[in-house]
């Protein structure tokens, strides 16, 4: 009832929908960066949508199965191969005991979600199987997979070949990626011109982009409204008295490179934030490769809630199509 890791890929981790309730102690939500694709992959193999899967970034692992199972890969276009034979993404396929799942080179996106019937059955820690590597918590021994690891499976052969998510129900970022932002938090620290520039400039994903946060560069430097810094805030105009950071919040240390915090966010710190990427678009960030262009698009709360509803509806439609 296991899979053997023959080669681990770049930073493959066990993830589910995360670990809410401990952010006040600095333990972040974690879970799949692209939760939409994670849930779609689970639905394809007949799992609960929030079952634990493998999140592979940029490069896939090689996995040997010790039992029959159904597998689906959703999210990034990281084409799967079974004993060297190509299989489709966003589709389920049967795997026989002894077969090896491997992957071709990445074609599009950044993170592939590998769902296996029965789910990856690592221990539940604080309510979740997700890996939080910085805190050595959860997942498989609190870390990314390594060669020769053996992962327990929940079991079951699953529904087998032939279930697919139609192209119209898949969701991936465009080019440039458009990330919708609700301005707020410390937006008032920016000059009016800098606020306009932030939304009109085209940014590029920086190489420093991981589960904690995505850094962007290439836009104009942001200027701050002059003030005497409050006691305890620190001397740089981008500093505030250390505070909580929302998931998706956009901090800009020194006014130069925006950082969007993601599922393994640092829970707080001393940099001002200009707003927050809306919940519906957090998935898209997980599919951005370094150097990819991106635009931040201003929305209001109504727009954010409408986008949230639309994303829910898309997932409902996938569930209905596979029911």
């Amino acid at each position, binding site marked *: 009832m296991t899979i053997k890791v023959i080669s681990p890929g770049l930073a493959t981790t066990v993830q589910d929908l995360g670990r809410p309730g401990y952010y*006040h102690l600095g333990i972040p939500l974690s879970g799949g960066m692209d939760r939409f694709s994670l849930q779609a992959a689970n639905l394809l193999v007949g799992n609960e949508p929030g079952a634990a899967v493998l999140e592979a970034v940029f490069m896939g692992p090689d996995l040997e199965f010790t039992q029959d199972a159904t597998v689906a890969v959703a999210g990034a276009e990281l084409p799967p191969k079974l004993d060297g034979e190509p299989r489709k993404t966003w589709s389920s396929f049967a795997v026989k005991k002894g077969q090896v799942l491997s992957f071709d080179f990445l074609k599009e996106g950044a993170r592939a979600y590998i769902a296996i019937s029965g789910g990856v059955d690592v221990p539940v820690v604080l309510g979740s199987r997700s890996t939080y590597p*910085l805190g050595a918590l959860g997942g498989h021994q609190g870390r990314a997979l390594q060669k020769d690891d053996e992962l327990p499976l929940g079991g079951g052969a699953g529904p087998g070949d032939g279930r697919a998510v139609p192209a119209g129900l898949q969701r991936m970022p465009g080019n440039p990626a458009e990330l919708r932002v609700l301005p707020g*938090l410390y937006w008032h620290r920016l000059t009016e011109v800098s606020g306009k520039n932030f939304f009109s400039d085209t940014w590029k994903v920086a190489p420093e982009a991981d589960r904690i946060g995505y850094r962007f560069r290439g836009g104009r430097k942001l200027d701050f409204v002059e003030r005497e810094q409050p006691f305890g805030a*620190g001397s740089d105009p981008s500093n505030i008295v*250390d505070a909580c950071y929302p998931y998706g*919040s956009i901090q800009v240390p020194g006014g130069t490179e925006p950082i969007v915090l993601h599922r393994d966010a640092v829970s707080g710190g001393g940099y001002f934030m200009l707003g927050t990427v809306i919940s519906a678009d957090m998935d898209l960030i997980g599919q951005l490769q370094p150097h990819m262009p991106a635009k931040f698009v201003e929305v209001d709360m109504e727009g954010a809630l409408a986008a*949230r509803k639309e994303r829910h509806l898309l997932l409902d439609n996938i569930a209905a199509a596979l029911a």
Partner: protein
Amino acid sequence: MKTRYTFGGDEHIFVEVDEEMSLEAFFKSLSMTSAVRDSAIKGVTEICPANASLQIKFNPDEISPEDMLAELKSLESAAESGDNTLQTRIMEVPVYYQDPWTHETLMRFRERHQDPNSSDIEYAARINDFGSVDEFIAAHSGAPWFVSMVGFVAGLPFLYQMVDRPRQIEVPKYLSPRTDTPKLTVGYGGCFSCIYSVRGAGGYQMFGVTPMPIYDPNQEIPYLQDFMCLFKPGDIVKFKPINRDAYDQAVEDVDAGKFQPLMRDVSFSLGDFGADIDGYNSKLQEVLYDN
């Protein structure tokens, strides 16, 4: 103090109690978070107090952002008129100041520091007008500290010293963050001390190291078996300077599962504290040391 409410996307409300740090702002943030917890508002998924602010995460499918905002605002006046007392704990944290490990690390990152020619603690002592590093250590370990926030990474406490503002130590963060900080480093940035719970990046000045683990995801350390993080917002901490021998002994005790932090339950009154800060701090230490 002027409280400001703002949305962090469609899932968070961020409440800035005050722009600047003070014990009053911290107490109000703590009272508001307790009030949110007690009122069990539906849809709330995270309740996070910070130094002079707080943050609530909620599920907008269960409660609309506007309704959530109205609920929070209705709790503010009650939190303000609270009696400003706290049932909490005081604990001793031994610190080996100027230890070789943080020293080795700070020497590796000298080009990111304001003053490449002195150590972090020499620099902090000088810009805060202390005559010597020893005087600085006496101030840092003299008056106790409030854990005013837990976060950044798992279990990391931010600490605010319980002295009046003229005696607050203030130190800038590194010019650009280090990529490495030893585990259990006692650091300083702005007006906050901190203890790094895990090894990793950091921008705070480094003064020393504690032998006392504060985070254990495997929960093998006896006093972390109830929960993997030691600190909670509202805990009171007293630093105690120790030398190399005492540090080595403590590490040996930790490894043998014999180390127990010195810890006592205590009641704290902001009013009484404000009336006589030094006298009140002495009383807190009497509780800690059973005098």
